[in-house]
C-alpha cells in the first residue's frame, strides 16, 4: 500500500518534472499575444479561448492585444522587429500569409515569418438564408449552371480563405458565381441573413450563432462536424474541397530554437485541455496538431495548394 503510494507520487513527480522545470525557465512573466485583427473575429475568439487555459498550462497569464490593419499584414510586417525572447507572440493565419505577398509588396514574405504552431482551422461552408429556395447544394449548383454569374456569395474580405474556397468550388463544379467581399465575417453574415446575396461562403463558425436562421449546404471539412451532424461535407457530395483558414501562433525570427519549441508546446498542451476542446468544438472550430516539428512539411504542402488556388483567383501573375 505504502510502496504503491510512494511509487505513484514519484511517478507523478517524474511526469510533472519537465513541466515544472520549464515553468521556472519559460515563461517567467506574462506573455503578450498580438492578434493582427479586430476583436470579435475567429482569431480573437479562439485566442480568448486559449487565454482561459493559458495560465493553467504555462504558469503565466497571457495578455491579448489587437493590432489590426491591412488584413493582418500590418502586424505581420512588423513581427520580426519585435524582440525574439518568446514573450511577444503573434497570431498567424493561412492562407493569408501565403496569398498577401503574392498580391504585391505588403512588407513581408511568407518565408520571413516563423509560425510555431497551427492549432485549429475553420472550414468553409456555403450558407443560404432559411427562406432560400435552395435546400441542397445540388439545387444551387443546377441553378448556377443555368445562370452563370447570377449566384452571389458574401464572404469575408478579398483574397481570403472564403474567396479561395469560392474560386476552387467554381472550378470543381464547373460553374461561375460572383464573390462579394465584406469587411469581415460579421457584415458578410448580416448580408446573408438579410437576403442581400444568394448565399454566403463563410466559415462554419458563423453557423453557431445563427441557429436555424441560416441553412448550411455543405462544409469543407474532412468529416462531418460534431456540431452539425446533418450537414454533408463537400467530399461526400463529390467535390474535393477541404480547408479553410488555419490559425496559429508565430514568433519573431530572432527567437532561439528552444523557445520556439516551448511556445509551440504551450499551444499544443492547451489543445489537449478538455474544457478547451469542448469550447472550440461547440464553436465550430476544428482542432489540429501541427507543432513546430511538423511545421516545415505543413507549410510546403499548404503553400503549394494556395499558390494553385491563387492562380484560380488570378493573383500573382
Amino acid at each position, binding site marked *: 500500500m505504502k510502496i504503491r503510494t510512494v511509487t505513484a507520487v514519484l511517478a507523478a513527480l517524474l511526469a510533472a518534472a519537465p513541466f515544472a522545470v520549464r515553468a521556472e525557465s519559460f515563461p517567467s512573466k*506574462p506573455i*503578450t499575444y498580438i492578434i493582427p485583427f*479586430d*476583436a*470579435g473575429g475567429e482569431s*480573437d*475568439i479562439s485566442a*480568448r*479561448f486559449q*487565454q*482561459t487555459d493559458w495560465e493553467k498550462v504555462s504558469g503565466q497569464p497571457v*495578455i*491579448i*492585444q*489587437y*493590432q*489590426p*490593419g*491591412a*488584413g493582418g*499584414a*500590418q502586424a505581420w*510586417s*512588423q513581427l520580426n522587429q519585435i524582440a525574439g525572447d518568446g514573450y*511577444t507572440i503573434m497570431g498567424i493565419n493561412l492562407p493569408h500569409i501565403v496569398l498577401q505577398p503574392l*498580391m*504585391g*509588396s*505588403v*512588407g513581408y514574405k511568407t518565408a520571413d515569418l516563423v509560425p510555431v504552431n497551427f492549432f485549429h482551422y475553420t472550414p468553409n461552408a456555403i450558407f443560404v438564408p432559411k427562406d432560400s429556395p435552395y435546400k441542397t447544394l445540388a439545387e444551387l449548383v443546377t441553378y448556377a449552371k443555368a445562370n452563370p454569374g*447570377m449566384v*452571389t456569395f458574401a464572404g469575408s*474580405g*478579398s*483574397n481570403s480563405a472564403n474567396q479561395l474556397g469560392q474560386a476552387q468550388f467554381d472550378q470543381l463544379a464547373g460553374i461561375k458565381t*460572383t*464573390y*462579394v*467581399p*465584406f*469587411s469581415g465575417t*460579421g*457584415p458578410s*453574415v*448580416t*448580408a446573408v*441573413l*438579410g*437576403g*442581400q*446575396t444568394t448565399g454566403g461562403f463563410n466559415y462554419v463558425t458563423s453557423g*453557431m*450563432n*445563427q*441557429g*436555424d*436562421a441560416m441553412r448550411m449546404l455543405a462544409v469543407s471539412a474532412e468529416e462531418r462536424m460534431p456540431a452539425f451532424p446533418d450537414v454533408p461535407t463537400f467530399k461526400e457530395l463529390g467535390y474535393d474541397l477541404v480547408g479553410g483558414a488555419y490559425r496559429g501562433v508565430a514568433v519573431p525570427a530572432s527567437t532561439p530554437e528552444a523557445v520556439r519549441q516551448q511556445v509551440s508546446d504551450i499551444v499544443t498542451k492547451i489543445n489537449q485541455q478538455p474544457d478547451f476542446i469542448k*469550447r472550440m468544438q*461547440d*464553436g465550430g472550430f476544428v482542432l489540429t496538431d501541427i507543432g513546430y516539428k511538423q511545421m516545415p512539411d505543413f507549410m510546403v504542402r499548404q503553400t503549394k495548394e494556395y499558390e494553385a488556388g491563387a492562380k484560380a483567383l488570378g493573383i500573382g501573375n
Partner: protein
Amino acid sequence: MQILGYLVAALTPYNLLLALAGVSLGTIVGALPGLSATMAVAVLVPFTFAMDPASGLIALGAIYTGAIYGGAFAAILVNTPGTPSSIATTFDGYPMARKGDGGLAITLATISSVVGGLVGAISLLLLAPPLARVALAFGPTEYFWLAIFGLTLIASLSVGNTLKGLIGACFGLFLSTIGVAVVGGDVRYTLGMQRFLGGIDLTSAIIGLYCIPVILDLVATPNPHLRAAETGGLRLAEGFRLAWANKLNVLRSSVIGTVIGILPGAGGSIAGLVSYTEARRASKDPDSFGKGNPNGVIATEAANNATVGGGFIPTLVLGIPGTPPDAIILGALLVQGIKIGPALFSAQGAVVDTFIWGLLIATVLMLPAGLLIGRYAFASVVKVPKPLLAATVALLTVIGAFAIHSNVDDVQTMVGLGLISWLLSRYGFAPSPIVLGLVLGQIAEQGFVQTYLIGHASGSLGTMFFGRPISIAIILAALATLLYPLVSQLRARNKAKTEGKAGAVQQGRDTGGVIAAGGFVILGALMLWGTGKASALGAVFPGTIAVAMIGFSLVLGFMLLRRRGAGRAPEAGLGSGTLRRIAIAALLPVWALLLSVTGFLVTSLAAFAVTMVIADYSRTSARTWIIRAIAGAAIVTGFWWIMVHVLLLRVPAGLFL
C-alpha cells in the same frame, strides 16, 4: 413582470459598485483622446472571466457607455473628440466653451448622454428581437447611401465655403482609400511604405486634424484657453431647463442613435453626425449651428450614447457585433460559455435581462459620476497655467496616437496630418469635412462596390442603386440636406441684393486659397495616375474622387482668381505668436521622430519642458518654474507608467527609456 425580477438581481451592492466604477473609469478613458472604449473593454475582459457572467457584462457595458460619454469632455474643452463618436460634439461644444459656456455644455452633454443611453437600453430591453430586423434590412446599397447622406452634412457645415468644404471632403475620402482595400484587395497609395498598408488610422487622424491646430493656437496668445464662466460651475439648473425645452431634439436624436447603433459597422460617429444634421434642419436658427448652439451638443451626445444600447441589439439577437466594443463583449460571452444568437433571449434570459438592467443602472449613475468628473475636468482646464496645459495637451496627443496600435508611425502620421490641417485651415479648409470624408469613405466605397457586384450579377444595377425603398428614403433625406442650405443662401442673397449690399465686399485676393487649389489639382492628378495599377474594382472609387477633387479645385481656383465670393480671405498676417507657433510646429515632428530613438519617457520629458517654455508669456519666477517642472515630470512619468504597466503597451525604450 418577470422582467422586473431581473432588476432586483441587477441591484446587488456588488453590481452597483461595478457599474459605478465602470462608468467612472470609462468616462476618464473616453475623455483621453486615443484611449478608446474598445481598448478599455479589451484590457478588462480577462478580469471578468472570474466574475459571474451578468456582473462581468455589467462591468464591461458600464465602461463602454462611460467611454462614449467621456469623449464629450475633450471635444468641448480642447476641441478634440475623445472618441470618434463625439466628432460632432466639437462643432458646437468647443465654441460654447470659448464663449464661457463650457460648464453648461458639459451639463448638457451629461443629461443628453444619460437620456440617450436610457432610450437605447430600454429599446434593448423591450424591443430587441423586432428591432434586430433593421440590421438585416440594411444592405450594401443602404450603407452606401447612408454614407452619402453623412457627406451632405458638409454642405451645411461649410455654408459660404461650400467649395472648400467639398474639396476637403475629397481629401478625406482620398485618405480613406490609402492602404489595402477591403474590396478588391488592391494596395493603394502607400508609396511603398509599410506604415500606410493598414491605412490612415481614424483616431490618430482625428487627434491630429483637430488637436494640433488647438495646440498651435494655445501657444500663440497669452490669453486664457477658455473664458471662465461668469456664472461659474456647471450651471445645472440652466442645463436641465435647456434640455427640457429641447426635449424633442433629445428624443429624436436618441431614436436616431438607437437605430444607427443597430446597423453593424455604422457606429457612434455616424449616429452623431446624422442626428446633428437633423437637429440643424429642424432648428429655426440653423445658422447658429457650428457657432455654439447647445442643440448641437444635445443632438450628438444623445445619439452616440443611444448607440450603446442599440449596438447590443444585433450583438445579442443575431450574434453580429454592432460596434468594435460589442465585438469584444461578444467574445467574452462566448468564453463564459454563453451562446448568443436567436436562442439567447429564451435560453439565457436571466443573464441577458440582468445585464440590460445593469446597463440601465450604469447609465443613470453616469449623471452624478459624470457631473462630478466633468466639474473637475472643466475646473482644471480653466485653472491650469497655460504652459502646463499646452504641454499636457501635446503629450496627450502623442500618447493617444501611440496607444491605438503601440505604434510610433501613428504618432508621426498624426503630427503630419495635424500640420497639414493647420495650414489648410488658415486658407479656409476646415478640418471637419476632411474627417467626414475619412469616416465615411470606406463605408461608401464598400457599399458602392458591393452594390455594383450584386447588381451587375443580377443585371439590375439601376434598381439596386435607386429602386430599394429604404435607399430612396435616405436619398430624399440627403437631397433635402443638400438643397436646404442652398435655398436659404439664395434667399439671403436675394435679400442682400434688394438691400443693395453685394455679398463680397472688397476682399483681398485669396492667394493661399489659389495655391491650395492648385495643390489639390496636382494631388488629384497623382491619384488618377496611381489608380492605373489597381484592379477595376479598386480603381473606380479613388478615380471618381480624383476627378471630383480636380473639378472642384479648378472651379475654386477660377473663382478666387476672379475674386468672387468663394471663400473668405485668410486673416491678415500671422500675429504676434508666429514665432512660438513655428517653434511648436517644429518641435512636434522632432518629438514624434525621436520617440523610438531616445525612448518614449526621455523624449517626452524633454519635449514637455520645451513646450512649457514656448508657451510661457509671463515673467515666471524660479519657484513657479520648479513647481511646474515637478508637475510636468509627474504627469509625463505617470502617463508613461500607466502605458507600460496598466495598458501593457510596447513602449519604445530607445537609447535611454
